[in-house]
């Protein structure tokens, strides 16, 4: 439901498949971009793609990693034998880029294009509220540097399409004369391609112009996935990978699976499994504010999870969601005890008492573990039938033998955060 980054191989394949439709047949790009995933049968690739055996190759991880060259995640000018070995050595292995560690599992393989540095150009299109901006620089490649400062810009108001003449005039001043028209035509087509296919970001750095035409060497792009009902068929089977390093734990994957089975929303991110502050918050907006408040009060390091449930999940789903969190938070004891914040704003139409019944079932099941982990529970919620819901929670406190404090709309939403954590530091 937003702008989503796509793989380089998918972006380039889209260009190969469709750019000529927008830019004209002289801009036909050969589709020689292979995506190698964890399930790809690497051995069979040379039969399928005859050019693999003939060409010098480039291999890169294809997982939204920036500055791969600097992290030595780049193989240039290798033959297939070397390329295959390079991939096998890295497939499903962890690697650290900057401060993020992730597993490598997708690579792009493409022909190595020998070229001169002066043939490299930079182009990008970015979207803003009022229109789109084309950025261009005649020196592309790894050393392009501060694009914002250096690149020439052409702002295109929404609803307009820039002509080749205007592009040439505004952007291509430093380009050798004989190349101006071919690059202008390329950018003109690229812009139509960008707009019609609902891209929200596209950067090609560099693309190379040589005697044979234009080749994108390095590409990063985002699509607006809400437009899939318009452009989905043209996109073909594209996937939207998670950011690099975002590996789901077993429990996160389980909640994601539950989420996919219901019209309601169930989300869970584990920040620190040994953290002492756990949250179970209703509503996307409220859940962010609870996490904010924990952070703002100086307990970021103790914040164990971020998550939310909303859209009226039924008793069973709420129960399974609550159980997952309770299980996680009672695995390892901490002598200082733990906090569980069952929070939420004032619901619109969701019956609060009903949604609490799933949580209560899970809490009862974890009675002993909650006691032995010295868990303190704080509840704050409002909305339809909240009095009944809060009453049930209060009664539960006595039954569980675990301290539960319960508040309604008369108490500021996040007050339970400070109540719980005050005096804890």
């Amino acid at each position, binding site marked *: *439901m*937003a*702008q989503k980054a796509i793989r380089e191989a998918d972006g380039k394949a889209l260009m190969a498949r469709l750019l000529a439709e927008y830019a004209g047949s002289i801009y036909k790009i050969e589709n020689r971009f292979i995506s190698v995933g964890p399930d790809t049968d690497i051995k069979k690739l040379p039969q399928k793609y005859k050019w693999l055996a003939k060409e010098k190759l480039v291999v890169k991880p294809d997982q939204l990693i920036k500055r791969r060259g600097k992290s030595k995640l780049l193989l240039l000018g290798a033959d297939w034998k070397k390329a295959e070995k390079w991939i096998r050595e890295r497939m499903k292995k962890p690697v650290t880029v900057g*401060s*993020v560690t992730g597993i490598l599992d997708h690579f792009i393989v493409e022909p190595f294009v020998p070229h001169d540095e002066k043939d490299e150009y930079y182009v990008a299109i970015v*979207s803003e*509220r*009022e*229109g789109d901006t084309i950025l261009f620089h005649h020196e592309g490649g790894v050393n392009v540097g501060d694009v914002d400062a250096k690149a020439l810009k052409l702002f295109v*108001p*929404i*609803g307009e399409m820039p002509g080749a003449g205007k592009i040439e005039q505004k952007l291509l001043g430093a380009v050798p004369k004989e190349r101006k028209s071919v690059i202008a035509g390329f950018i003109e087509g690229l812009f139509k391609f960008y*707009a019609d296919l*609902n891209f*929200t970001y596209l950067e090609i750095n560099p693309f190379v112009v040589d005697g044979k035409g234009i080749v994108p060497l390095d590409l990063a792009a985002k699509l*607006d996935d*809400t*437009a899939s009902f*318009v452009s989905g068929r043209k996109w073909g089977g594209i996937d939207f990978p998670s*950011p*690099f*390093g*975002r590996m789901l734990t077993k429990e996160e994957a389980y909640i994601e699976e539950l989420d996919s089975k219901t019209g309601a*929303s169930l989300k869970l*991110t584990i*920040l620190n499994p040994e953290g002492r502050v756990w949250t179970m918050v209703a*509503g*996307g*907006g*409220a859940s*962010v*504010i609870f*996490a*904010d*408040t*924990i*952070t*703002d*009060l100086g307990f*970021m390091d103790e*914040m164990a999870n*971020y998550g939310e449930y*909303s859209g009226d999940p*039924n008793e069973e789903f709420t129960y399974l969601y609550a159980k997952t969190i309770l299980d996680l938070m009672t695995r390892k004891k901490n002598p200082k005890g733990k906090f569980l914040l069952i929070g939420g*704003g*004032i*619901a*619109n*139409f969701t019956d609060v008492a009903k949604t609490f019944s799933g949580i209560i079932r899970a809490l009862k099941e974890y009675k002993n573990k909650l006691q032995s982990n010295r868990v303190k529970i704080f509840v704050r919620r*409002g*909305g*339809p039938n909240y009095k009944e819901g809060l009453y049930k929670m209060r009664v539960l406190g006595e039954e569980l033998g675990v301290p539960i404090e319960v508040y309604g*709309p*008369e108490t*500021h*939403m*996040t*007050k339970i*955060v*400070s109540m719980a954590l005050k005096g804890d530091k």
Partner: protein
Amino acid sequence: MVRKATAKKSSDRKSYELFSRNTQAFIYNMQVNATQRMLDFDYSSRRETPSVAAIVNPTGSESLQKFFFGPKEILIPAYKSLARAAEKHRNVDVLISFASFRSAAQSAEEAFEIKQIKTIVLIAEGVPERRMRELNVKAKRLGKVIIGPATVGGIKAGAFKIGNTAGTIENIIESKLHRPGSVGFVSKSGGLSNEAYNIIARNTDGLYEGIAIGGDKYPGSSLLDHLLRYEKNPAVKMLVCLGEVGGTDEYEIVDALNKKKIKKPIVMWVTGTCAKAFKTEVQFGHAGAKADAEAETADAKNAALKKAGAIVPGSFDDYGDRIRETYKKLTTQGVIKPVPEVDPPDVPLDMKKALAEGMVRRPASFISTISDDRGEELMYGKFSISQVFKQDIGVGGVLSILWFKKLLPEYATKFIDMVIMVTADHGPAVSGAHNTIVATRAGKDLLSSLVSGLLCIGPRFGGALDGAAMHFSDAYDRGLSPLEFVNSMKLKGVNIQGIGHRIKSIHNPDMRVTIIKNYVKKHFKNTELLDYALKVEQITTGKRDNLILNVDGCIGICFVDLLRSEFSKEEADEYIKMGALNGLFVLGRSIGFMGHYLDQKRLKQGLYRHPWEDIAYME
């Protein structure tokens, strides 16, 4: 009684006001609940006219829809197109579009074509960004305001409520939204607006107007657009705003503060300060809620706002306190003069809700005790449909639950299965089957043909089950010996029901009877009546060898034995009296009748006409 467009012309409204107490809107798509909620708000705000003038229902036909306006019912027209609705209701200047993400943009385009529409609310989430940007450019050119997409809408306290904003009527009253206060509020999130109205109600004299612009990256109107309206509006004394991580819209506010375009006190908080706790980039629930640069983080925005003069709390925890302080300051300065509270008229509770909450009671017109379709799973008695299959209770088991309100033991449910199987058909010549066939050949449908056969069932056809059960149990219960019974019937000149067969005899037994007898003897707990009947049969066959216990008699009598084993004698007799036995025959034989129907259709048999020569025409 159609309420005509009686609202005043909107031209007397100031440019900074989108809504008044007379504003009327069109609802795009049939949204019964949202419409009713708007009308409930209207009533508790003591509006004179309902805020919904008409519904645009592109997939339906023109109609009049019933709604409540307070305790009364009113009719609101539904039209097929927005253009037609506008033609009929010239005063309406707001469109609230509940069109889906696929057609929301289209609904806005339709509204662009209509001059009188000034404000367009798009509720849908997931409108493509490029499409939305195009709409925004057009709206600007046409001088129209878009609220949304991906929003619940907004509310002008005591005047106009968009769709589902502010939740239930109880919450609306509790948050004092039925009358105007002094605070102008705007946020991205619609989900949190209830909470914000609660905070405002508890810390100030209440909300003047609140708008949720929606969580998308390119909302139709921005936070600043609405703040500037409030700034110009003399009725708004202070501003409260809730921003969000991602995007740069909050810097427009910073800029407006710096340029003194906003001079009223503004309490503002940007949510998403927790983003720094995440190791990889994080996309919160809203499409726009993602920081792509340092400046887009909540911390950076909060700092910039504070520097520009906004009142920024240290965390959301102090948000309410800062709002209260600001309000107090304005009252001591005399900027805000508190007004006396007004009591809203009570919106009558809907019967459904009142019943659910136990506030009223009312005798039900119907009672049912055998099944329940309201829960997650269909229930037959105490058995969910999945248990029915898990325990494999069969047709006999289902029948025993639905007819006798308990699952009978397996011997009994098997017996019921046997009865249905044995009575399923008895050839095409018997009167019921014959009637079915004649009706079928007259071109009638399945149900008519079946019923024409079933209506033959009675004392002479199929009725022997009931008759036998009654004759035999009556004699047995009165303590008559088999011989006394036979003699007494002979004296009365009545044939004993269930005795006698046209062809079969003691020497040529009916296999159906043999099968049932053997089963019952082997499995039943109690066979008193069957034993009694067999003794009667000994006597009658002594007189004539075809006076055997026939299949109807055997089933009827055995069924009494079954019922008497599983229920008290009174209950068992009651079931017989009510016709349960007859029901078994109707059920079983329906299978055969429908078979004959299908058979005749398959054979494409034409209309049957009885031959003259088979009828004796007489004077």
